[in-house]
């Protein structure tokens, strides 16, 4: 299976402010009752975007000025809570190709890498500045360079950070972990032979 290398992403951005935005807010549990991920894009931030009568609330994902945005900007500990891959699936299927934030919850970050969604990390000041810029310039492009871990907007280049193995996986096109691991069949067998609990503790 050929996996594409992801080195650059360019597009307009959409800010979702707030720390500790959890996976139930990204996608409420009742929308997990489907056996495929196909429709998950419809449910992104559902209860933040719609009231109980399905009337639109004020939320960046409802704001027409951000239509077509492909980069999401967030604050601290984004994606905390559940392991549900439905969360990054819903964001990705809504049209987001990359997320820039102050920090990400562990399982959420792992899921993003599996889906080929780069996560870039900046400090509080960098993120707040970027959020302000996108609020004032919603149609302006932001260029992400995964190789250098930089973003470029308004004629300036900002140095950000990335998890090294995620960065490597995206840049080298090796984020399809199943293919990588299938290559190590013999090494798996060695571990199996040496694990006491798989060998009646002998």
């Amino acid at each position: 299976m050929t996996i594409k290398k992801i080195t650059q992403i360019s597009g307009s951005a959409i800010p979702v402010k707030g720390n500790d935005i959890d996976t139930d807010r990204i996608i409420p549990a009742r929308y997990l009752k489907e056996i495929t991920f196909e429709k998950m894009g419809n449910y992104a931030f559902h209860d933040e975007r719609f009231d109980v009568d399905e009337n639109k609330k004020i939320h960046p994902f409802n704001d027409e000025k951000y239509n077509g945005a492909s980069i999401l900007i967030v604050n601290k500990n984004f994606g905390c809570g559940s392991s549900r891959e439905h969360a990054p699936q819903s964001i990705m299927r809504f049209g987001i190709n990359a997320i820039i934030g102050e920090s990400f919850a562990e399982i959420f970050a792992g899921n993003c890498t599996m889906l080929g969604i780069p996560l870039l990390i900046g400090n509080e000041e960098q993120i707040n500045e970027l959020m302000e810029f996108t609020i004032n310039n919603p149609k302006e492009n932001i260029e992400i360079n995964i190789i250098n871990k930089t973003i470029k907007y308004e004629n300036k280049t900002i140095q950000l950070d990335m998890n090294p193995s995620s960065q490597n996986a995206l840049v080298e096109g090796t984020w399809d972990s199943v293919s990588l691991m299938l290559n190590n069949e013999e090494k798996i067998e060695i571990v199996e032979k040496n694990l006491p609990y798989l060998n009646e503790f002998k």
Partner: protein
Amino acid sequence: MEIIKSQHDLSDIKMTGKNLFEKVWEKHAVAELPTGQTQLFIGLHLIHEVTSPQAFQMLRERGLSVKHPENTFATIDHIIPTEDQQRPYKDKLAELMAESLDKNTKENNIKFFNTDSGKQGVVHIIGPELGLTQPGMTICCGDSHTSTHGAFGSISFGIGTSQVRDVLATQCLAMTKLKVRRIEVNGELQNGVYPKDVILHIIKTLGVNGGIGYAYEFAGNVFDNMTMEERMTVCNMSIEGGARCGYVNPDQTTYDYIKNREYAPKENDFEEAVKYWKSIASDTDAHYDDIIKINGSEIVPTVTWGITPGQGIGISENLPSIDSFKESDKKTVEKAYEYMDLVPGESIIGTKIDVAFIGSCTNGRISDFREAAKIINGKKVAENVRAIAVPGSQQVDKMAKEEGLDKIFIDSGFEWRKAGCSMCLAMNPDKLKGREISASTSNRNFIGRQGSPTGRTILMSPAMVGAAAINGKIIDIREVL
């Protein structure tokens, strides 16, 4: 709380030993991947109906098969109704999920503990009770509360669906090694302080993102003195503190719990197993990335007041002022107060509740129902409170009935349900309605978590939920003990 940042702060003694996490990791490391991650072998893979169907579909699309069906076990818990479990389920989407799990487990020769087995239940309750969960294993499941199994001295963590696919296909995961933080809690717990209070206290102290990048080792006499079920409650909520896994070193309590369970090593093997289990425990001179010391005798019954499990307070404290938080947290705190409709500076004692829920992978074990039963025995649930008790597994249900616990709950006005995740995440008919407030033994108080987009959750121990149900409002459990 005392924080020791690294081994350099620990004095001149060189810490050269290994901790459990390092030992188990090394035994399961298959190879280093080109990404720099470790290919880690997974000894036990647990699956359920919500996060597995898409993974099986991915396997089919790529022509891959399940590598080790004998190390994979399935149950149904999230979507199963807890009143009428007759198939087909009334909810067509839930029925489709159940059918998919039936089909996928049959086609791939995976053992499925369905309701006809007498062993069905919440995945993190049945793993330990069947003896599947053992020390020195790597365990994963497409569910963040897989950290529960760390109570046995295993490395256990939740994964996403693409990773479920990886484990099904290769019995391995691509993982980055975690740092290890030792959290020592010593001292005598006050009367009325339960494991739930200990973990809520730890999360409130270290924050919901304090554990990112870490595995938590829970140590000290407070955990040494806990039963296995109590240790499971603590490890279960590691993820709420941001730590993907948490563990307690195995000891005699662990071995005694496992002995004679269905999947436990038998006879001579058991002795050999104990030798292995002892060998993977942290060395006395083990190295840690940092150490946190907490005085257990200072912990009081703890409840949440906000919309993250870290927004908690000791029951006797007043709700914190917004100014007491860091500037960057103030927005979240304001949102929490607005959502919960609580007022800074006031006490949480006396907050009226509409629903009492006892159950979930955090507190749905037999000992949880025993503790709550002590509080409610002979009393009546307050008018206007809807109270439900949901055993975590069919075996817990059976034990409770043999002890007559179900009667105590029913006589006091609780509904006694069948096993499932129930109102913890409301992917089934058990849900809050509108702005209802629930006193809950579950693990998350996120906005909308219990099924109503505007519903509110206050997390606490089973005894505290029992007391809240009887009084119709939150009380300090110490007053009725």
